[in-house]
């Protein structure tokens, strides 16, 4: 009996979806807009993330050693820095490598190269390039390096300079930008999603408002609440699935068109390849949101007319 009822409810939902073509079309369109807003939010989040991590990549701290600093002391310092949890990576640039880099950079500048050849010794010191997991941690890393270096070599400092203090202002400014842009992005996103959910909810409410007379007739014929509500929830479910599919299909040409543009804008992210590589996750979110919106709004909207 239960399955007969479920079958009837689903069939009735399908039939009324089809027969109320315009109402269904309107609901699907509005819901497609809502789901597109959610998709846009995902993409904007990904672009913001990619842009910010691109900038973070470029921030680092260099520790320059004096030319007389012994390599074993530098290595022991390198190892203790590596063991710090907030450090992402440390790379060692030896004196020879620094010299090679310098020559490469100034390969067209004969005067400088000649001046360098006049010197008997390599004037450049070794250095450590440190990248933190989060830009806000550079200050503590710089402090750590200083105290550690003086512990390793108490008599004479092996460190020539740490360029953190020079970059401090830039790093602080960057921290603030990253922090506020993700906050603003989140607030704006939630705001837009809320508005579009409300619009969807109202559209479905209107669609069911049209049927309020029918609901009262069903009550009088002695239909149970589940039997009245079922077809509306089924139709809501169908609005959700169809708009989710429409949204996902529309995203294909849209991201394809905007992909190269977003990459050129310096986000370091091609929207199209992001969409393709995250297709499963995005589909899951969009279809899930569609199903949730469709069923919950129909369920709540019918409730109002079930009181008779």
């Amino acid at each position, binding site marked *: 009996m239960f399955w007969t009822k479920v079958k009837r409810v689903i069939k009735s939902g399908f*039939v009324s979806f089809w027969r109320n073509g315009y109402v269904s079309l309107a609901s699907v369109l509005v819901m497609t807009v809502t789901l597109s807003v959610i998709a846009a939010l995902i993409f904007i989040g990904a672009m913001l993330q990619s842009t910010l991590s691109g900038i973070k990549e470029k921030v680092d701290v260099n520790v320059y050693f004096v030319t007389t600093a012994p390599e074993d002391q530098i290595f022991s310092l390198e190892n203790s820095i590596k063991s710090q949890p907030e450090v992402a990576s440390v790379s060692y640039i030896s004196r020879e490598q620094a010299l090679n880099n310098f020559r490469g950079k100034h390969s067209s500048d004969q005067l400088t190269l000649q001046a360098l050849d006049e010197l008997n010794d390599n004037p450049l010191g070794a250095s450590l390039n440190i990248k933190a997991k989060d830009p806000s941690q550079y200050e503590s890393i710089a402090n750590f390096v200083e105290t550690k270096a003086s512990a390793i070599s108490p008599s004479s400092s092996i460190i020539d300079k740490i360029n953190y203090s020079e970059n401090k202002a830039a790093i602080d400014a960057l921290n603030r930008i990253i922090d506020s842009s993700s906050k603003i992005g989140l607030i704006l996103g939630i705001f837009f999603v809320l508005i579009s959910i409300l619009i969807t909810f109202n559209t479905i409410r209107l669609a069911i408002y049209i049927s309020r007379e029918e609901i009262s007739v069903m009550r009088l014929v002695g239909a149970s609440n589940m039997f009245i509500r079922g077809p509306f929830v089924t139709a809501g479910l169908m609005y959700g699935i169809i708009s989710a599919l429409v949204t996902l299909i529309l995203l294909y040409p849209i991201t394809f068109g905007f992909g190269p543009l977003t990459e050129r804008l310096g986000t370091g992210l091609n929207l199209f390849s992001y969409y393709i590589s995250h297709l499963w996750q995005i589909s899951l979110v969009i279809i899930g949101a569609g199903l949730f919106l469709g069923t919950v709004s129909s369920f709540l909207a019918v409730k109002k007319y079930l009181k008779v």
Partner: protein
Amino acid sequence: MIYFDKVSKIYADNSVALEDVSFNVEPKEFISVVGQSGAGKTTLIKMILAEELPTSGSVFFESTNVHNFRRGEINKYRRRIGTVFQDFRLLPDKTAYENIAFAMEAAGRSEEEIAADVPHVLELVDLGRKIWNFPHQLSGGEKQRVAIARAIVNQPDLIIADEPTGNLDPVNTYDVVQILKKINDLGTTVILTTHNKGVIDSLEKRVITLEHGKIIRDDKSGKYIL
């Protein structure tokens, strides 16, 4: 079968719809309730269907107070009553067949029963040819016949017809009344409200006359007198 015990209904705006109404309906009886618009006929019907709560007094259906039913029980109770209204109240996006099938589905009948009974009952009200028409493709009289078919398909104990002929021409009015009479002859209790004098006079059944919410006359084989 149905017993009204000193039922009064006063709406929120202090208008009195029913005042101290008591009467008894026997099984297999055919009762007409007459009165001018606003006399309280529709309120009386809503009381029986448990759509409205009385301000005081109680309504009994076979010794059960209908206003004490819980939600799930109301559905089962309403399936024992067939209703026909002046405005037909068909489901607009369902065909004649589906409208009747819906009432059977709601009552939990099997697909075989539905497939057998729906054409039969449509034949009974002489609508066999328009089985797949939607309500907007039917005339008033045809719509009312679908509504009657829907009301009787679950073999209810009671048929309530609230001004069923109000929107019909004399020929269709005559047909509808004949169908109701036939249903009553087959053993179903019928409560009919109307203000059609011709209908009442031709029936020669019991007539309850309402005026300003009170019963002013209850005749065994009445005429329409106001």
